């Protein structure tokens, strides 16, 4: 059982994700506002983070950058889930240290789950 933090502002998406992940047996914490992201992660110390880019308040890139600069938090694997997929953005995300990136509209939750499991396994 792993702890996963989902940072996503869309309620429907977050609900589906949470449901699927909990059915897998993981503990899921959901943050909808960017400003609360880092604090929640610090608090819950998850094994994985699913991070959206477009958020109210602080955006995903800023959060990603902040996390990777933090000594404690930089080890946590982060999968960026966004919907823009602009080349420039993807490069930036990779540069900042996210382990993977996917476009929500092009993936179904099952596929996302596979990636999650992969990274959780690796992380062990």
């Amino acid at each position, binding site marked *: 059982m792993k702890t996963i933090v989902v940072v996503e502002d869309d309620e*429907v998406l977050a609900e*589906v994700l949470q*449901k699927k992940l909990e059915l897998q047996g993981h503990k899921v914490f959901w943050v909808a506002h960017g400003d609360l992201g880092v604090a929640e992660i610090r608090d819950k110390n998850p094994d994985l983070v699913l991070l959206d880019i477009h958020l109210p308040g602080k955006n995903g890139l800023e959060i990603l950058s902040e996390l990777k600069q933090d000594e404690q938090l930089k080890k946590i694997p982060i999968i960026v889930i966004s*919907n823009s997929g602009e080349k420039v953005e993807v490069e930036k995300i990779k540069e900042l240290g996210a382990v993977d990136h996917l476009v*929500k*509209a092009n993936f179904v939750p*099952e596929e996302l789950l596979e990636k999650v499991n992969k990274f959780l396994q690796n992380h062990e």
Partner: protein
Amino acid sequence: MSIFTKKKINLPLVSALFARFLPGKRDVVISSSFFTVFLFFLGIILVLANILWLLPALEAIQGTITQNHFTVASRARESVDQFFNFNVVYLRTLASDIGSNPLTVRQELEISMRDNVAFQRLTFLNQEGFEVSRIDRFGFEALESASRKAEEAVIVAFSGESFIGPVFFEKGEPLTTIYVPIMTERREVIGVLESQLRFRTVWNAMETISRESGSRVFLVDNEGTRVADPDPSVVLQRENLMVRDVVRTIVGPGKDVALSLAQGVYEDENGTSVFGVGVPYKKLGWGVFVETPADALFSARNKIIFLFILGTFILLVIVLWSSSRVTNLVNSLDEKRRQTNAIISHLTDGLIQYDKDFAVILINDTAERLLGVRSDDILGRIFSPKDSKKKEWSSLVGVLFPVIAEDAHIVSSGDKETKITELKIEYPVARDLQVVTVPVTDEEGGTGSYLKVIRDISYEKVIARAKTEFLSLAAHQLRTPLSAIKWTLDFLLGKDAEPLTEEQRKFLEGAFASNDRMIKLIDALLNVSRIEEGRFGYEFEPGDIVSLVENIISGLMPISNKAGVALKFTKPELVIPPLMFDKERMRFAIGNLIDNAVRYSRKDASDSFVTVAVRDTEDFVEVEVSDNGIGIPQEHVPHLFEKFSRAVNAQKATSEGSGLGLFIVKNIIVRHGGDIRVESQENRGTHFIVTIPKDPTKIPPAEKTFEE
């Protein structure tokens, strides 16, 4: 504006001259008003030069005229002198004959009278002055009874000198008298010989010389009275000519004895203007005068003066006319330049002209403003990339040498001669500029200078950026609810949700598919808009096309299996060297073609296949996607690569498909310098053949807006 200020013209020759002395300055100008003044003074100088020639010529003519008259006068004088000399000598001889033998006086006189036809009368006066013997033409005559020794002539003769008397008239005949002393051998004066001579000979001589010379030659005595003239009637008038300066100078009491001639222009007795030259006959104090009517005489001189005046006049007219022409020309040139200036300075784009050495020839107001320079500081100066160090010139140098400018990239154009570059400048403010470089060809076809047309595209750039951001945001905003729908439906259709009825499943699957189409449509729209804006963002890298195709095929295998289509790959025999391409885009393009081939296979057939082949020709790599599917109707083929274009049979086969795929595919292939063509037959099959050039230089330099 700089060079083209008021009233200046450019004389290439002069400016080349000046350029030697002012290195670094290229165009020196002369003011047109200076030019006019210059021409005017040139005209004056020429006129003065004309005069320089004229005066000596006139003098020479005058001299010749005078000389000619002098010669004639001298000749006339000579003949007068001969007359008197001859007769005086004759009389002296006669006198001495008489003197040595006084008793023979009568005979001697007789003989002399016979001998010398000039004599009219000869008279012998004795010591007391009484006439002793007298003979005239017709014989001996009665003698005067009174003594004549009081007469002046007699007195002079008695003193031993000969005396020549004035000219007088007797019965209309001109006569003159000569008195000579009669002396013995011992030089004792024993008498005076008086002779009256006919003066007509002299008259005849004057007449002859006049006739020969074409002038009027006459004789004037020491009192200024005319004594000989070609016209005898004039002499008879006994006119005194002392009023004339010429006469007065020669024979008057105040005459200059050293003077050898006098000349002048005056009116003769008829009122005719004449030119007269007089020479003195010093023996008698008489004067010989030669007159010629001034008009005829000076006709030559007058002609010359007239020619001179005419010539000068014509010259002046020419000078004035040509200078006014030049002024007009210059003014009209000025006018044209003013107009051009006005246009150039009012251009909303910046304009710079520079030569091969990168010396700035011209810069308009807008360019000055955009680049933060002043024309006075930079005109004529030769620039090099080093000058970018100076902040004030950094923007100008960036425009002149885009290679070193910030963020400079070439935007290609159709015309090979013209180059369009976009770059950023920081001074005087941050701007995005578009710089068009155009070579200026001269008459011979060579390139003498270049133009830079500078446009501030900061606004356009801002708009473009805004558009991009808007599109990204729009895409994202659209995708988010679509993702939500997708995931929700997926959950319901998946194992984690409660089981569904057949009907529920069918509808939910339909909803899922529709939603997916929407997502794909948005993707395609986004790509198309990026292509049209030239922002598709190609990145070319060397790669292995064969392994890419393999990878695509393996990725599509599940779909082809599901559709019951056999997907095969024909590898080339030999290894293809690395090709320059954008991996992501090429994957999309080839994947799209294969996906289409699978999608448009014949549903009722069991032997549907899609074959992909990669071939290596000398200059190209060919990728062929062949199928035995529904084919493309002939009438649709021309529209195949247009936006939103789907053939009728394709629409029937599946409602899926945006009609954008092939548009994007073609763009990708063209962007690689390649080409795509299709061969197809309805209900038989389709071949798509993609050719990509191996030579990376064939890749077009920049993103063009795709023209369908």
